[in-house]
């Protein structure tokens, strides 16, 4: 009898917590599916439609933002990984003064608030003539990832036994050969985790996008935030866009969970 009460209490608490957690997502999706005229009275009426999604997608600026964000996220993933995989490998394997200096640098610059370097980055990208271009977004985004991802990658490499590499060295294999042919294949799950996280982080990123873009290269988060302020009345388009922007997050949650969790646990 007591056990029954306990189970019920446990179930109710868990249900309430998950209900609260999922409610905002549910409500936004419901809003996005209501006809334009009824969007302000989501709770009244039961007419549902998918037309808002089509309308939002047909808006040139929204479509452009989706494409830009996807391209930038993909580029940033490719280049950030190239840069941070090797840097993490160095941190994990080659101890010494250079290692200590690099580790301290990463540690220190991870603490610097983004606003402190993104404000002058505005000047720098203007000066280099890459403001509001893919390149002007890509390079700072790689810099954003250097510290954190080198650190995560070090953790992945720490979990791989160094014996195989050492055997390869004895057999006359070069450092590059051992790294590319022996270590990297073993680090595949770590690299996958980081690739997924990197793509999603860039897709979701806002502050750098806000400051380093103008009208030529609109990015999704910036477009949505502008929406919220300037076109705050068009909630049917706004909510449809936001729901579509969440799709990658949903896909990763459902299908790439195990990779991502290993990357987030630190």
């Amino acid at each position, binding site marked *: 009898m007591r056990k029954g009460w306990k189970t019920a209490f446990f179930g109710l608490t868990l249900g309430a*917590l998950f209900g609260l957690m999922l409610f905002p997502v549910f409500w936004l999706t419901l809003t996005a599916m209501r006809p334009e005229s009824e969007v302000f009275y989501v709770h009244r009426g039961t007419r549902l439609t998918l037309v808002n999604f089509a309308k939002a997608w047909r808006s040139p600026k929204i479509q452009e933002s989706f494409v830009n964000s996807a391209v930038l996220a993909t580029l940033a993933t490719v280049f950030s990984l190239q840069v941070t995989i090797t840097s993490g490998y160095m941190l994990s394997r080659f101890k010494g003064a250079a290692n200590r200096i690099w580790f301290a640098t990463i540690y220190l610059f991870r*603490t610097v608030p983004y*606003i*402190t370097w993104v404000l002058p980055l505005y000047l720098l990208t203007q000066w280099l003539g890459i403001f509001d271009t893919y390149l002007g977004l890509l390079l700072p985004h790689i810099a954003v990832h*250097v510290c954190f991802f080198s650190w995560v990658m070090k953790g992945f490499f720490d979990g791989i036994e160094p014996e195989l590499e050492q055997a390869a060295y004895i057999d006359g294999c070069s450092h590059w050969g051992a790294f590319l042919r022996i270590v990297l294949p073993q680090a595949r799950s770590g690299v996958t985790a980081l690739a997924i996280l990197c793509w999603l982080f860039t897709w979701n990123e*806002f502050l750098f996008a806000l400051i380093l873009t103008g009208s030529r290269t609109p990015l999704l988060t910036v477009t949505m935030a502008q929406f919220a302020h300037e076109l705050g009345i068009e909630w049917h388009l706004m909510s449809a866009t936001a729901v579509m922007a969440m799709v990658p997050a949903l896909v990763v949650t459902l299908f790439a969970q195990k990779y991502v969790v290993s990357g987030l646990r630190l």
Partner: protein
Amino acid sequence: MRASPSAAGASLFRERRRFIFALVAPAAAVLLVFEILPILMGVDASLRRFSLTDEEHPFIGFRNYARILGDAHFLGVVMFNTFFFMLTSVAGGVLLGLAVAVLLNRRFPGRTAARTLIVFPLMVAPVVASIMIAWIFNDQFGVANVLVTALGFPPVAWRASPWLSLGIVILTDVWLQTPFFVLIFLAALETMPREPHEAARVDGANAWQVFRNVTLPLLRPVFLVAIVIRSIDAFRVFDTVWTITKGEPGRATEVFSIYAYKEAFVFLNFDMGAAASLVGAAIIMVVGLVLYWGLARATEVSR
């Protein structure tokens, strides 16, 4: 053709050095040009009279810093908000995250599905989360006010009140960040040794006593890491505040990143923005160290 052993050793050593350099050089170059150089440019701008609309940028020493540290709004509102946000959102995340982790650590049907779903908020863009929750608390059309009026109260003007606006931002941040704590605590709970718990049970402790006196102390090192990391992130919050309030009503909900951004790009005092952002950077370094040191001491003393 065979080299002598020592020559082979020297060339191997050189290859190793070149290899190490090649591994780090790309990352270091990007960091140098796109993070360290901008920071130095920011320091330079903060020591000048520097607006994005001006041609000339005369050197004026520490006057911008003096202005910021003498600004009652910066100290009384902005810094207060920043620390208030940091404390409440991290505390909320830790408590809720711990509760959910303990619940999810039990066996029950649907556990796998629950553990999958819980990660979702962590994957969502802060801008999107802000839009969702701001929509719920919309003054005119939000479902929160539907609920309030259904209960017989007059509708609440959420956005007119600094405290309620800040509360909505904090709620959004807790929504976004709780899964981070859940993951960390769950990982720690799962690898926890079982013997102390069983021993306490045998000694007649009830579930709460076991949790309070055995589980919590064992979780302390994890608390330390999670709290320090999240506090540093919460201190520099920007996305949620900007999307939900823009610092309004008035300038009552500005945090330090918003203040620096507005000075630079809204009021066009780039020098003040740069100086404010550097003041914030200095503060968070100190706070990070103090937190780490304080929490490390606290966990040692109580163990």
